[in-house]
Structures are given as C-alpha cells and as structure tokens.
C-alpha cells in the first residue's frame, strides 16, 4: 500500500458515536450493534472485519438508516456525516442522501438486482432520483458500464440482470454505487458471492475507482486477505462492538486483541506446511442479552476475572492503534 493513501486528508467525513442498534424480537432484545465508535476520514479506505453475525452489516445499514423494519431500531448514539447527525434527519432528507452522498453495495449481486427491470433502468435510478432529468439516461448508463469495464456496454445496457454473470452484476452494482460520485461508499462483502478470480478483478476495480474518485470506502468483509489488498486501516468487530482499530500494517505485524491474534493465526500461509489450520475455540456470542463483560472472554485463553464482569475501555497503544482489552 502506498504511503500516500495512509496519509489521509485527516478531515472527518463520518463519525459514529456510541451507536446502538437493537432488534426487538419475541425472544428478547438482540443488541446487534452495541455502542460502536469510529471515524472515517475523507478519501480513506477502511476495512470492517468480523465473523458472520457480529454486527458488521447492521452497522452499515444503520449508517444508511435502513435497518430492517419493524423489529430493528437504532436505539441511541450519533452518526455524524459531514458534521450533521443522520439520525436527526427526516426520512425524505435521508432518501436524498442515499444513493447520492452515501451509497452501498450489497453482498449478493444476483439477488440485489431486480430481475424484472433492465440493467439500464436500474443503473439510471440513482441519477434520476437525485437530479432533474429530461430525456434518456442511456448515454450516461453506457458510460457507467464502461467505467466498471463491462464489455459491449451499448448492447448490455438493454439486458436484463439474468443475462449478466455474477461478476458483471457486481460491476453493475458498483456502477450504481458510484453513479453520483458519493462521498462514502459502503461495500458489504462485495466479493463473497464471487469466484476467486472474479474477486481479484472486482477488488482491483474498486481500488481503481477509489483512486480516481477519492471517495471514502468502508469495506465490510470477513476475509483478511481482501483487507490487506485495498484498505489502509482496519476495524475489528466482535459481538456488536469494535474491539480493535489499527492501520493494516500494524495489525498484521502485531495484533493486540487475543481475538485478532487468533484471526491472524487462522489465515493459511502459502508455502508453509502447517498441518491442521488454527481455529478459535468456541462459538461467536449470542447477541440476545449479552453479558456485561468482554464478549470474547468465554473463548479467550487469557481471560481473567474482570474480563467477565466489566467491559474493557479503549486503550491507545500507539498512534492510530486502539484496543478494548484488559490485557493492555
């Protein structure tokens, strides 16, 4: 990663302050996002990493204010986007921000496209609903497809999504995401549903687009390799909270949280015969009425008594590297 990208403009674009999002179900309150704090600077690419069900996607849907209704609700906190609290905006103001200033790419490209509407129509939507449009958006849509390198865009624009491959659908979704040149693009596992070779292409495409547009990107993934390829900074999420924040390089060299250490250890390394791959014992915690202490304590080999009782505060290890763990 180039140093230029690490040296961000240091202007805060998005600040999450103690955001809590819960689902009110018959079984009880599921605290999917339980007090999340982080900051995204302008032009920064940040990875949000964690296992399935840790609250990554709900965090991003909270930023979009699209938490599944009626069970889900953002309970408290502040989401400052360009110094304005998104949680105080009206539904219509939010709609105007969505797809224009903040956009998002979902994880399964094939089901994220409406199968009954032409690709061109769906591509044109972000522009159509944020600008005054007179006449056809065809040319603009062709341009978008060109930008994300879909071959033969002039004819492809008239296709239906089922005539596209998975990789092409993902490209089209990225095109929709960047149609209005957003300040923030949230990519929720954009490569999970794709073949490995296509994954690499999509990541390269996102990298290129980011370099060109200087949009900030939050890349949500459970794949550390993806993060290493395009992110400058990393947030590790566990049990509805961010447990470690670090620049990517620092994280790989000296991960601080025992969970992060476990994650790094369980990445297979090419050329090193390791026998059985390392895995963290136990199950991810249920977010239904979680305990008051550290969420990772029951699986942690170094857990002591306070770990089970009080949630650890955030400790600054060095510039940009913070961890929530009683070991530090």
């Amino acid at each position: 990663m180039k140093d230029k990208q690490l040296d961000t403009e240091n202007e805060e674009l998005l600040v999450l302050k103690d955001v809590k999002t819960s689902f009110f179900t018959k079984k009880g309150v599921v605290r999917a996002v339980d007090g999340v704090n982080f900051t995204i600077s302008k032009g920064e690419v940040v990875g949000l990493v964690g296992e399935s069900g840790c609250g990554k996607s709900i965090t991003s849907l909270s930023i979009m204010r699209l938490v599944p209704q009626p069970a889900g609700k953002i309970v408290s906190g502040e989401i400052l986007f360009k110094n304005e609290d998104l949680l105080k905006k009206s539904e219509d103001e939010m709609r105007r921000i969505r797809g224009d200033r903040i956009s998002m790419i979902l994880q399964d490209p094939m089901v994220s496209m409406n199968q009954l509407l032409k690709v061109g129509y769906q591509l044109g939507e972000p522009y159509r609903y944020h600008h005054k449009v007179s006449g056809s958006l065809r040319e603009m849509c062709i341009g978008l497809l060109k930008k994300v390198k879909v071959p033969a865009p002039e004819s492809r624009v008239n296709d239906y999504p089922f005539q596209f491959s998975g990789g092409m659908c993902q490209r089209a979704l990225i095109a929709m995401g960047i149609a209005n040149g957003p300040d923030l693009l949230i990519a929720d596992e954009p490569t999970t549903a794709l073949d490995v070779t296509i994954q690499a292409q999509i990541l390269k495409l996102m990298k290129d687009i980011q370099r060109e547009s200087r949009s900030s990107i939050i890349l949500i993934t459970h794949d550390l390799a993806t993060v290493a390829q395009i992110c400058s900074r990393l947030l590790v999420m566990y049990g509805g909270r961010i447990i470690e924040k670090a620049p990517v390089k620092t994280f790989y060299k000296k991960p601080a949280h025992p969970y992060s250490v476990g994650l790094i250890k369980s990445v297979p390394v090419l050329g090193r015969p390791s026998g059985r791959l390392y895995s963290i014992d136990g199950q991810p915690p249920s977010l239904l009425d979680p305990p008051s202490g550290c969420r990772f304590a029951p699986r942690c080999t170094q857990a002591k008594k306070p770990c089970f009782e009080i949630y650890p505060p955030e400790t600054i290890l060095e510039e940009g590297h913070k961890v929530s763990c009683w070991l530090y």
Partner: protein
Amino acid sequence: MQGYILKRVLIAIVTMFVVLTVVFFVFRMGAADPVSIMLPPDATPKDAQKLTKKFGLDKPLIVQYGNFLKNAIRGDFGASFRYSEPALTVLFSRFPASLELGLVAFLMALSIGLSIGIISAVKPDSFIDRFGRVFALGGMSVPSFWAGVMLILFFGVTLRWLPIAGRGSLLNFIMPAFCLSLFPIALLTRLSRSAMLDALKSDYVVMARIKGVPEIRVILIHAFKNASISVVTVIFGIFQAMILGSVVIENIFSWPGIGRLVLTSFFFRDYPVVQVYVLFVTFLVVMFYLLLDIVYAYIDPRIRYQ
C-alpha cells in the same frame, strides 16, 4: 417471442380438440337416450326409429363423432330441446348477464383485494392489516350461498334497501357482485400480502432504497412488479371464474345468466344446452390460459427470452 406465442396457440388448439372428443363420448355414454326424452310417452317404436335416423344415431359411433366434429367447427352444436333454437344461440343470449355481473365482481375483488393486501404488507400490524386478516379469514370460510341468503335477509327483507332478485338497476348488482367477489377478495388479500411481504424483504428492494428511490416507487415498481407474478395467475383464475358465471349465486339472486340457464337445462334434460355450456366454458378457460401465458412473458423477461 413469436415462436413462444405460436407454440402456446398450438397447445390451445390441441387442448380444445381433446375437450371436444371427451365431451362427445361422455355425453354419448353418460346421458339418457335423447330420443326417448324427446318423444311423447305415446309414441310408437316406429317414431323412435325415425327420430334416431334423423339425428344420425343409427350410424356407427365413429361416424357420429366425425359429424359432431364437422358441425362443431362450423359452430353447430345442435338445437335446444326446450327452446327449439340452436343451443349456442340460447347460451349467447344469456351470457351478457353473466359477463356483466362477473366483470363488476372481478373489479371489486381486484381493487379491494389488492389494495388491502399491499397496504397490509407495507404497514404490517396496522388497522388495515388486522382488518384485512379477519376479513380474509371470514371471506374464505363463509360459503357464498350462506352469505347470499344472509345478505338477502338483512338488506333485502329486514332493511328493504336492496332488491333481492333479478337484473335491472345498479342496485341489483350490489349483493350478487359482493357475494361473488367475497372469496376472491379474501384470496387476493392474503396472496398479495404475502407476496409483497416477501418482495419487500428482498435484497433488490433494499438496493432500491440504497439508491434513494422514493418509497412509493420502491413499493409499486420494485416490489409489486415482482410480487405480481404470483398474483397474476390467481387474478386470471378469478377473472375466468367470475365471468363464467356462478351457478350458485345466479340461482340465489335469480340472475338470468348462463349459470342459471345450465341448472334449469339440467332439470329439463336439455342436453344440447348443457353440452354447449361445457364446451363454451372450456373454450374460455383455454383462451384465458393462452392469454395468461402471453401476459407472463410480458411481465417476466426470463420467460420471453427462453
């Protein structure tokens, strides 16, 4: 697309031919001997022979079948015993009444059922949703003959607000049309509600919201278009059932349509009319499904491009 339609048309033609064949043999085997029905009780065996010969019933079955097909293609299905007019003419004279009632009932079912269904899905647990669920349960469980009689008793006899029988003014429509559409409203409410709930939960709807598409368009363009695929089949079924007339409703409200005609024709052993009724109903059903296949292809490009 043209090949697709051509294929459907061919299938429809073959289906019609099979139905004609089945109807011919079922009526030859099942029905009482038409000659003995038509003749007065004091007729001689010679008269019977004469009539048998006149109708060509002395010829082998296969020849009769050939004649039947030949006449059917020309639109000749024999004369009604009761009206001494071609059976088809009798049927057609009664059909407009059924069509009229059916269309009113269909439009009622469509507008009420779909709107309750969609609103219920968009606002689950709202007043409309609760009302819709109770109404749907009631509409599906209450038999239409009972609902009809109760309506007549309440609005016709007790309150004297609505006429209880016959056709004429607009007021005459209200009760029979409501009775006829009771079940379809319930069915459409439930179906469109669940189809819309599924569609609204899907990723493409979330994606549309992410793009900042206004909510009303998310509901009607993104969600409803997808939900409509499963609803369209049922809508067609309902349309066809509605305009083909209901034997039960038409008899309860003395509505002079084909449903009432076919029942009285049974009582009078007027087989040509019954036979032409069966053929007409199947013909319309086949036509509806042909149309349905074409509409499907229009809504869902995946079918069109196969």
